[in-house]
């Protein structure tokens, strides 16, 4: 097998993004670069969308014949060593021939094929220079990114965003696609430039990375990932209520177990404060900004988070949805897949209750601490919203605080279905339900046993490379839900949203 020419890889990404296309490769090339973004097949069928040919092979007549047949609809990408040879054999199909650093490439666009970034460029008669970094990423400005020693800075309109990177890291060797995606997850809510067309063309790495907070959900995610997964901890480098002592204690314990962890300091959570909000993540995947920055440095091929069921299949914790069909997933999943670092959410089908069980079974319950308020390592505040849920799941006490009171009275109820589960545990102990949640008393006898099981369809969203590992690890201790999640009682989800049915 020969190495796949990067120019061919880029052309195919440009012809397909954001779809996962069925590709037939008729050349002696290694195709693993497409493992995240495309489906490579060995035979031409009516569902084939792109055929890649080498002029060295002698099979183009058959392909040309099929190309003309109305039951087929595929673009052809031809790799050749001269413009003339491509022109000679494909003349009647009017190929667009481009010169890249490595070779000549003929692109034959099917007139009824799917539209895409590259097809639009061809149709509009624009010049095509795939070696120009700006071709597939037209709005990116590398000059906004600088590095001084271990400090990498992204200059934005509102502030300088800093990241403190590991030794030997170089911004120069970091893919522009990764940097643009970081900008996307940090700035897109306030800047429409990030909605303009572009095509990620980074090749995948070799190892999964997890955006690790040291809390229950990301610890459960870690337990369900391969043991060589790298853990990336984000440390706020500005004064706030969040304390890092517990997380640091956990990271240190993990290091002594032989796990590789990387801590990166950043102030990116301050961006929101310039838009009238409290510090926090600009978007749900802003939690991966630090991981994305070092994804080339650590050769990552998957970006994991501990996003649980309450945020995936339960929209805002209270409305059941098909996460795979959500606009959120449809927007980010192809972007990360084409970036060669597909989103890996091992606990997308697991509730906080399941994650708590996984953490307990892996003996991390003393180390995994969701509480971000305690200034003393190994201790929890017992009065924050996270302590309320974790302590209740584990049958421990908690102290009513302004924060807990505020969240319990909010509708939709935060982490709705998991919080309801916690309230049921309080009720089962014979204790009084906090008055802020008295409207939920009719739900105290509702059966929420399914929250102790995992929702199987979530496994389909895992990167193919890691699906089996995660499924095996998960099914060792947790069973599949027998109940159809979409059949969850509307009375429950309605009341969690503050609507009495």
């Amino acid at each position, binding site marked *: 097998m020969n190495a796949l020419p990067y120019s061919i890889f880029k052309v195919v990404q440009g012809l397909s993004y954001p779809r996962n296309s069925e590709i037939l490769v008729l050349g002696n090339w290694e195709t693993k670069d497409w493992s995240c973004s495309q489906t490579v097949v060995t035979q031409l069928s*009516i569902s084939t969308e792109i055929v890649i040919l080498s002029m060295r092979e002698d099979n183009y*007549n058959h392909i040309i014949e099929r190309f*003309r047949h*109305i*039951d087929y609809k595929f673009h052809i990408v031809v790799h050749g060593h001269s413009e003339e040879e491509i022109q000679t054999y494909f003349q009647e199909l009017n190929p667009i021939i481009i010169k890249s650093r490595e070779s000549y490439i003929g692109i034959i666009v099917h*007139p*009824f094929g799917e539209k895409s970034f590259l097809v639009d460029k061809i149709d509009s008669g624009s010049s095509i220079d795939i070696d120009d970094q700006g071709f597939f990423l037209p709005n990116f400005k590398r000059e906004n990114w600088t590095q001084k020693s271990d400090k990498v800075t992204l200059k934005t309109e509102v502030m300088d965003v800093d990241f403190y990177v590991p030794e030997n890291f170089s911004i120069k060797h970091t893919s522009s696609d990764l940097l643009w995606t970081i900008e996307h997850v940090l700035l897109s809510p306030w800047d429409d430039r990030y909605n303009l067309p572009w095509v990620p063309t980074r090749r995948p790495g070799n190892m999964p990375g997890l955006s690790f907070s040291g809390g229950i959900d990301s610890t459960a995610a870690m337990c369900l990932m391969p043991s060589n997964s790298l853990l990336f901890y984000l440390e706020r480098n500005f004064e706030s209520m969040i304390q890092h002592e517990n997380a640091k204690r956990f990271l240190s314990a993990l290091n002594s177990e032989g796990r590789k962890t990387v801590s990166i300091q950043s102030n990116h959570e301050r961006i929101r404060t310039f838009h009238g909000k409290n510090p926090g993540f600009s978007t749900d995947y802003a939690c991966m900004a630090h991981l994305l920055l070092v994804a080339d440095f650590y050769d990552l091929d998957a970006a994991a988070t501990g996003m649980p069921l309450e945020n995936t299949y339960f929209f805002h914790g209270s409305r059941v949805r098909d996460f795979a069909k959500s606009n959120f997933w449809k927007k980010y999943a192809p972007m990360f897949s084409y970036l060669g670092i597909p989103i890996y959410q091992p606990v997308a089908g697991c509730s906080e209750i399941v994650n708590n069980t996984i953490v307990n079974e892996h003996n991390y319950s003393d180390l995994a601490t969701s509480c971000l308020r305690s200034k003393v390592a190994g201790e929890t505040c017992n009065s924050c919203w996270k302590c309320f849920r974790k302590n209740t799941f584990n049958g421990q006490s908690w102290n009513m605080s302004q924060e807990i009171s505020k969240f319990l009275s909010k509708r939709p109820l935060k982490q709705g279905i998991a919080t309801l589960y916690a309230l049921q545990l309080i009720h089962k102990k014979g204790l009084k339900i906090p008055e802020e949640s008295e409207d939920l008393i009719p739900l105290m006898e509702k059966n929420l046993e399914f929250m102790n099981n995992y929702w199987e369809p979530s496994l389909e969203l895992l990167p193919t490379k890691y699906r089996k590992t995660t499924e095996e690890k998960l099914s060792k201790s947790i069973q599949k839900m027998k109940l159809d999640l979409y059949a969850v009682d509307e009375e429950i989800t309605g009341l969690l949203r503050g609507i009495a049915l």
Partner: protein
Amino acid sequence: MSESAIELENVSLTFPRRKSLVKLVLGLFQKQENEFTALDRINLVIKQGEIIGVIGTNGCGKSTLLRIISGIYPPDQGHCKVNGNISLLAGLGTGFSGHQTGRENAILYGSILGYSEEKIVTKLPEIISFSELEEFIDEPIRTYSAGMKARLGLAVASAIQPEILLIDEVLGVGDPTFKEKSTNRIMEMVQEAGTVVIVSHSFGMLSKICDRIVLMEKGKIIQEGDPSKVIQTYYNRAKKINKEVVE
């Protein structure tokens, strides 16, 4: 003279279903359909000078439609009116007799297509030359390759220029070297014929030469009009069907 070359009004055609022994036995116990509808209430008017393409998946009734127009099948219901002499290019060489020579088969095949022996005999030198079978024309046709038979079939079928030309998937017959020649010949006929109805799977050729395209599905016309729009509909429906099959 009527402005329309072909008029189909409410044309339907059914065929009896073939039954295997198993189905015959099963038929004793359960009700089974004895016939299927190949064409279902087709209404189509083709003007003189129009080039019409017919597309659809296999078994949708495209070839049957051409056979109704050419008069091979009479409709069970409705009417088919044709103004002008017709030539159907379909299944080239079907009906050749193996033990007879190429020359004898050319005359025989011409008569199947509705040409008089006299007319074919006058066209024979042209037929032999076009088919490039000079050395083999007096050999029994069983000694011919499939490509040679197709060449002779096309040469006979295209020897006489009709007013209405019906083409059923016969573009580019024969071996690779003859393909270009046969395609050119048919395209010449298309240009010279007053009216053409062409069944093809070549979307490029159809969108290039057709004034209008008809999309058929399960014996019915489901869309007709601008070639690009109808071909797009075909792709959209095929995508939907494939998706359903996968799901």
